[in-house]
């Protein structure tokens, strides 16, 4: 009782006692962020494998590994958020088709299989060769990875290629469902006027593509720089164009959503208005929209339309990509946290201040965001990122 009164001091207007606490906090901000990066990174690899955008070849393999590393951590925030993480397994033990929340478990698992298989087939030649070169535990590991097959005949590789295009093709709708689902789970909360819109899955999906492509570009620049390798500017130019394209649609939809809310001015508009121009003003309008959308939008447009020099692109591409990564993170924050700041009383709002060392605090969030990078590093030891890493091609 005393605690409630104490927290209520951080509230504005009248807030129901059960609205005082923001239950879905940082972990639930990270969850759509990480899943989004997965879906987006997969799109990059599909652009090469399915749509045959040749310029993206240098990124085709890396983006799959990148997607996988983040996928491996996508459920972590959810587990950290749950009071009883062990019970998550119940959705496989006693599957309930009408549970919207459990849906993620099934989609995620199916997608993880497709992604793992695609990586396995794409790297098969490499794995088989490594198996022959290595001894001891490494040999055992490569034996498992190559399914103890040594067949690299033309016929076998042809079969592989067929399977790869099939996996990549079904992977696209699955990646879309994976992240569209995350938008759906928010869009389906009809009690929350900020979330409850059928546009939610679309916006989530588009921002996912955007964050995935931006993430790949940033990682590409970083890793190549660290390894002292050259950067394929043609590839960067193409990915920047795609980034811009997706971002145009993404940003337009984000704005259209707000404008249609405002134009329709339904019963909930005044609450939304108070939220967006109140506690969310800085994080939404100033940061997400003005600084982190408009500036990268112009930058990307400029480098996509005008013929800029490589040295300028070398600066603009990573800068704009980092800004877009932050934009998407803020978008998740504004949606997830923002939606919970308004009270169901429609007469008040609370504020939310994450702490460093709490169960779902900032420190843990940072650990979870660093983890995929460590996984990626370890994976890089077995599956080389770049096609110029001296190995044969599929």
């Amino acid at each position, binding site marked *: 009782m005393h605690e409630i009164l104490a927290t209520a001091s951080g509230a504005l207007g009248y807030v129901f006692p059960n609205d005082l606490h923001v239950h879905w906090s940082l972990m639930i901000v990270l969850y759509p962020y990480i899943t989004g990066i997965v879906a987006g990174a997969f799109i990059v690899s599909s652009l090469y494998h399915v749509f045959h955008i040749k310029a993206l070849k240098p990124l085709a393999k890396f983006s799959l590994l990148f997607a996988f590393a983040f996928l491996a951590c996508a459920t972590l925030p959810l587990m950290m958020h749950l009071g009883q993480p062990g019970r998550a397994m119940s959705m496989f033990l006693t599957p309930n088709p009408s549970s919207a929340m459990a849906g993620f478990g099934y989609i995620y698992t199916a997608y993880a299989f497709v992604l793992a298989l695609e990586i396995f087939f794409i790297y098969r030649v490499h794995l088989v060769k490594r198996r022959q070169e290595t001894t001891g535990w490494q040999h055992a590991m490569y034996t498992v990875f190559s399914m103890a097959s040594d067949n690299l005949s033309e016929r*076998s590789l042809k079969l592989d290629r067929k399977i790869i295009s099939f996996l990549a093709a079904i992977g696209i709708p699955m990646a879309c469902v994976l992240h569209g689902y995350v938008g759906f789970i928010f869009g389906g909360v009809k009690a929350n006027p900020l979330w409850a819109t059928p546009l939610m899955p679309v916006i989530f999906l588009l921002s996912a593509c955007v964050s995935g492509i931006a993430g790949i570009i940033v990682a590409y620049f970083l890793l190549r720089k660290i390894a002292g390798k050259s950067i394929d500017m043609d590839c960067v130019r193409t990915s920047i164009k795609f980034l811009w394209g997706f971002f145009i649609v993404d940003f337009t939809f984000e704005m259209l959503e707000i404008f249609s809310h405002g134009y329709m001015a339904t019963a909930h508009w005044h609450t939304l208005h108070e939220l967006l121009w109140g506690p969310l003003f800085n994080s939404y309008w100033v940061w997400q929209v003005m600084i982190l959308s408009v500036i990268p939008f112009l930058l990307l447009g400029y480098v996509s339309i005008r013929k800029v020099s490589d040295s300028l692109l070398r600066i603009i591409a990573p800068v704009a990509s980092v800004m877009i990564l932050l934009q998407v993170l803020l978008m998740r924050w504004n949606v997830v946290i923002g939606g919970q700041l308004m009270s169901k009383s429609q007469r008040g709002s609370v504020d939310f201040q994450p702490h460093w060392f709490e169960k779902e605090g900032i420190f843990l969030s940072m650990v979870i965001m660093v983890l995929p990078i460590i996984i990626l590093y370890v994976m890089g030891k077995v599956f080389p990122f770049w096609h110029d890493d001296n190995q044969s091609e599929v």
Partner: protein
Amino acid sequence: MQQNFKSSYNVHVVRILLTFVGMIIVGSLLRSLLLPSEFGDYGHYRPGAVTEEANREMRNKTNDSCLDCHYFVKKIHLKGVHEVVSCEVCHGAYSDHVKDGKVIGEMPVYRGEEIKSLCLRCHNKIIRARPPESIKMIAMPEHLEEKNVRTDHVCNQCHHVHAPYKWIKEAREMMGLPEKWEGGSSWKK
């Protein structure tokens, strides 16, 4: 260059498919081992869970259960308008206070300024938390200005917390003010 390979050209695909089949078999085995036998008898749940939940120790009880021991409060509370209000809303859960008929913990009691925010949780006109027909609401500090008193008065200086009109009614009788109350010997309106 024609090479001779030990394995056939599609053996890895076959092995992957077999792995999947194996996973499905192991999965179903695990499921049959882990799934409680009576699961699904009546629906998508384990019937035993219902009894388990029902047998959980209750945290909250009725006002009567408090009044068994608090005879003094009983004499006042039941005669006042707050008769309908739960003790535990203002104090705390029974199970934190009493177990097996013995007192095991202290109940929190609001004092001074805290009482003001406690009362205003239900009686605040500004936030209009509830329809006025069910609970009368007042605005602060108007309520005290009307009474011509200093605005730093706390509610329980005039209202008995357990029977809000007790003292007010007694004071009116003492002063010979017109009888505005109908409740007879009770301190209700």
